[in-house]
């Protein structure tokens, strides 16, 4: 445990905490307290997640059967393409990329480092409003001209289509800007605001994961910025850089787009790995196995993620030499991921494991991320990817690592840090029930899609070959289970807010620094700034 040598025996629950420090809605909207900004992010991200989830259910409903009598008759191919695009854009740009870093990174990074706030508090608030601005711009396309290019905006279709692509692209650009500013804030906080005595190998693994994510955010998002700007210029002025009739090369657009978007998938999954390291260590009451290995493999993943984007383009007209080059380096990304998985599982060895709701979500992460990771290796092999590219195999793969990985860890994180956020305990049985529904529903939805992919069903298809119908019907039923599971999770959270019993400062007996601050922590996090003398996972 980070022994705080000064006696910080928790003063009886100080009435003054960050929630009731100031009253009134304006005190929330104009706050620069990183904890309040985290709560505001949580609310926005959960709403966008709800909207994205509804689009997902509509999509699955539309794909229930193919042919004349559609399950949702009002969904036409045009409406389906728009739903498919909105599900992608909302989930990627509004929920998963900002998700864990903005909510848990904002709230926990300063507390885990023993700091009073992030390095640039006003910039933190500005990033939240820039994120909201971007979300409203992209969201406004729902009413002004829709968008039907998918979240990848591939040219030349995104140049030719008459839907409002410039609006959506501007929204994505602005949200990218917010993501850069958050990453910048977290890097400087980790470098400059650590508690006295807390060297880089005494910080919790969650901070390492957020640090690696912020590095990717800083180095990858600008290239997405310029790509989207050029796409806007393409549509407005006909600049011709990505437009084949004007001499451009659409494959170059894919290079620029995936130079951001593959590191972006590591922006999505690395924070989730950070959360899982915390959960596994706390709920096995055992020091993490191979701290340095996990910390440095986060950095290794961040570094190698910039070299592998070509595996999205094996069949897109990319040269065979480039395909082979990207394939060999993509295999290297698998090594640090395998290191992490093995380390988490050996943390449980000789531990004392307790399956509360957060731990169940961590176990769910390990189970689903193993399958997701392994199928990723299949797609990295060029010979196999030619058959699987742009089929439902890929859809299943990235849902296993994104929903199975990031969203499982996100929900697990909410249940784990709920006492620290709001000072109340959530109802554990409701949490476990929600896990059961989400876990089974997830497998019922997405495992059949691996088989559909092997059978060759292409992606983004509204009408599919009758041979694919039975598996699609199973998948749609599964999606209702997931929907119900997340509703139960929402019920557990609301129940916690309304009727949760008072939480002590350290309900789970965890050893990292944030559990030494009272929950919910006061405005300046710690009555006295703690001095750290030992590692973050000193369970005996």
């Amino acid at each position, binding site marked *: 445990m980070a022994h705080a040598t000064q006696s910080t025996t928790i003063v009886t629950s100080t009435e003054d905490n960050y929630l009731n420090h100031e009253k009134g809605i304006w005190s929330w909207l104009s706050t620069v307290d990183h904890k309040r900004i985290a709560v505001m992010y949580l609310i926005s991200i959960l709403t966008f997640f709800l909207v994205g989830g509804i689009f997902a259910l509509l999509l699955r409903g539309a794909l229930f059967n*193919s042919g004349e009598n559609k399950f949702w008759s009002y969904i036409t191919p045009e409406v389906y393409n728009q739903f498919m695009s909105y599900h992608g854009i909302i989930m990627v740009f509004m929920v998963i990329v900002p998700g864990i870093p903005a909510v848990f990174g904002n709230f926990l990074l300063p507390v885990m480092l023993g700091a009073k706030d992030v390095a640039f508090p006003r910039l933190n608030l500005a990033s939240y409003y820039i994120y909201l601005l971007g979300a409203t711009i992209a969201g406004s396309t729902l009413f002004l001209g829709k968008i039907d290019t998918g979240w990848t905006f591939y040219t*030349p*279709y995104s140049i030719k289509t008459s839907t409002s692509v410039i609006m959506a692209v501007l929204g994505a650009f602005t949200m990218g800007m917010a993501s850069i500013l958050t990453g910048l804030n977290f890097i400087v906080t980790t470098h400059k605001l650590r508690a006295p005595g807390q060297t880089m190998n005494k910080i919790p693994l969650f901070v390492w994961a957020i640090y690696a994510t912020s590095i990717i955010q800083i180095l990858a998002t600008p290239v997405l910025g310029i790509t989207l700007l050029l796409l806007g210029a393409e549509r407005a002025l006909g600049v011709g850089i990505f437009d084949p009739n004007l001499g451009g090369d659409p494959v170059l657009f894919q290079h620029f787009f995936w130079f951001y978007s593959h590191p972006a998938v590591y922006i999505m999954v690395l924070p989730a790995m950070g959360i899982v390291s915390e959960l596994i260590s706390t709920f096995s009451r055992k020091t993490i196995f191979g701290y340095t290995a996990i910390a440095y493999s986060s950095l290794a993943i961040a570094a190698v993620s910039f070299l592998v984007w070509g595996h999205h383009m094996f069949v897109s007209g990319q040269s065979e030499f480039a395909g082979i080059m990207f394939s060999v380096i993509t295999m290297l990304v698998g090594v640090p991921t395998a290191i992490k998985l093995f380390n988490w599982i050996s943390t449980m060895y*000789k531990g004392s494991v*307790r399956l509360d709701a957060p731990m169940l979500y961590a176990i769910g992460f390990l189970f689903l991320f193993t399958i997701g990771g392994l*199928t990723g290796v299949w797609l*990295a092999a060029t010979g196999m990817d030619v058959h699987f590219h742009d089929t439902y195999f890929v859809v299943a793969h990235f849902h296993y690592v994104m929903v199975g990985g990031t969203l499982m860890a996100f929900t697990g994180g909410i249940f784990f840090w709920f006492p620290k956020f709001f000072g109340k305990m959530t109802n554990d049985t409701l949490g476990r029930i929600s896990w059961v529904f989400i876990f089974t529903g997830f497998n019922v939805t997405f495992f059949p899609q691996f088989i559909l992919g092997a059978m060759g069903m292409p992606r983004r298809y*509204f009408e599919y070959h009758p*041979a694919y119908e039975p598996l699609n019907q199973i998948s749609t039923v599964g999606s209702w289970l997931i929907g119900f599971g997340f509703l139960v999770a929402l019920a557990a959270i609301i129940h916690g807010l309304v009727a949760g019993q008072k939480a002590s400062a350290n309900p789970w007996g965890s050893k990292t620094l944030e559990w030494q601050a009272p929950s919910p922590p006061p405005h300046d996090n710690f009555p006295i700034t703690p001095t750290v003398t030992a590692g973050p996972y000193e369970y005996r």
Partner: protein
Amino acid sequence: MNTWFSTFSANAFMPIQGTEIAGKVDGFYAFLLISSLISSIILIGGMTAFIIQYKRKTATDKTAYITHNTMAEFTWSFIPFVIMMVIFYWGKVIFNELRTMPQAGEEIHVVGVQWAWNFKYKNGIKQYTKDGVTKENKIGNVEKQVMVVPYNKPVKLVMTSNDVIHSFYVPGFRNKQDVIPGRYTAFWFKADKLGEFQVFCTEYCGLQHSQMPATIRVVPEAQYAAWLDSNKPSAASNDGGISEVAQKGIELYENKCRSCHSLDGSRVVGPTWKGIYGAKREFESGASVNADDNYLRESILNPAAKIVKGYPAAMPPYAGQLSDEEIEQLIEYMKTVK
């Protein structure tokens, strides 16, 4: 259910192998399937074993203070590294075979247009979708283009697209290749099974992305030669006595105009070309004129100038994209559309 799926044979859930390479890909698939199964058993099995064995008994259990173990950490980073290098190399060998074009062999040209695959043979046979895929053509009975190919002979497809990126995917051959406007890409196969193979478009290309299938029909050598001769367009008859210039107009119509203007009077996005030449046109601005050469040329170069009443101003200007000679061919063709 269509029998071209072999559900419970060795290559579980993979479509019937249409080429020899498909067999190799399925072998690789079986290896990946088994090795991943073993790895997940190790990982998930180990996890569940630890969870059950080390259940928490009291709130303050004593746990072992193990921080790391170099030997274990080295093995479980080196062994996956080696397995992955094997997977990479095996994949590379198959990829190389899929992507090295045969020297000799039939050459067929494939043109992907928004929402149909068109095929062109050396001796001039054109499998073009005349009026495009209409609304009610569900996948079950859509009018699919058929590419007839010889059995057990290498066939090379030189593919391009006229508007957006599509992707020519034949599940039976385990091969797919994007078709990119402004560039040629190649796709080859040597079919070693008779019958019909399904072709999908797997790169998102808009409204009817899911309704542009095609079929590859593999026929014995002799039957293929006979088919080629019987369908060869004789030089004389060129589609009902249209002049040479208008003939070229068809090609331009297929590439550039078909997705918005129909020939049979139905409304797609823009007005139909049926009986357009000389007809009276009313405009949004209230003025009206008979559709002569100048009006048609102006509407092609700068369509926003005169918008026909009741139609959206959605046509992009073609100034600088079509040469005068091409515009001439289009107008000549429009005259023939009755």
